[in-house]
């Protein structure tokens, strides 16, 4: 699969001519940041949450991840400005809140639209 940038633009040199979009070209335009299974799970979960925000421990439990694994994927998403991380205290206990940004939500919607496009093209 071709590498893509943050906005989903492909750097593949074998792009089809205009008007001849194929499933392969659509697949190539998939956002690699979200396409990874764990990150897809994180973004889907956040998109379904009220306020598009969830607590670190909740995400960890729901997706059955370790602290380290989740932190790594959150860092990737944060570096792409798809999520914002906020730390605070609740009842004197440290909490980490993860929020899906507007950019992240837009990227997620674009990703879902691309998946649907792939399915329609192959059909």
């Amino acid at each position, binding site marked *: 699969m071709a590498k893509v940038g943050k906005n989903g633009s492909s750097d593949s040199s074998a792009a089809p001519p205009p008007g001849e979009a*194929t*499933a*392969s070209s*659509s*697949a190539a335009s998939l956002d690699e940041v979200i*396409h990874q*299974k764990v990150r*897809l*799970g994180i973004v*889907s*979960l956040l*998109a*379904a*949450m*009220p*306020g*598009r*925000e*969830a*607590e670190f421990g*909740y995400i960890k439990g*729901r997706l059955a991840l370790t602290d380290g694994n989740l932190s790594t994927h959150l860092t990737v998403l944060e570096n792409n400005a798809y999520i914002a991380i906020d730390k605070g205290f*609740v009842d004197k206990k440290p909490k980490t*809140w993860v929020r899906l940004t507007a950019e992240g939500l837009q990227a997620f919607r674009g990703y*879902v639209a691309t*998946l*649907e496009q*792939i*399915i329609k*093209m*192959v*059909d």
Partner: protein
Amino acid sequence: MEQSSESVAFEAAERTASAEQREEALANLHLISQTMTSTRNEVELSGGASGYILLGTAMLLGFLGSALIEGWWQVAVWLLVSCGVVASLVVIRRQQVTAISRSARWLLGRQTIISVAILCHIWAILALSFFYHAFSPQYSLVVVGLVFGCGIIAEATFVQPRRALIGLAYIVGSLLTLFFFMDYQLYALGLTFGLPTIGFGLYRLRKS
């Protein structure tokens, strides 16, 4: 000829790749749908068990209390029940959702809205029956019971099939008030509204 066979091979490879991509796309869409649905249900239904037990007990105590105590003391029964329900629902909701998301604490949730709507409706009937004796509360109970019942059944088809039992209880209860508007009407309402709701809450509690 050679070019043609290359072209056929290329097309075959393209088709295989497309089929694989389609499979992957379908799997990813399924994952997204599953994650989002289960998350929404979990947030929405968090505290569901205790909330349903609470509402069922309130209906049972409220209606049976109203049947046993006549006159103005009914107000005291419903006042006690209503305050207990609202306070407990707020505490349960806040405790459970804060552990998940800061924003969720401000959400009322369908269950809380239904509970408060039921209590408001009961209060409206009480007020009308005390201050305007010509009013017949049974028709109001039928309408609201049917609306709540159908709403819960419709919602249950999407969220949790067993919740349909509560909807059925509301419909049966409201019809009872229409056909048997007699002395034991409040007992019938307390049992048909209260017991299935408590039963559903206990079922959810056991499942969780």
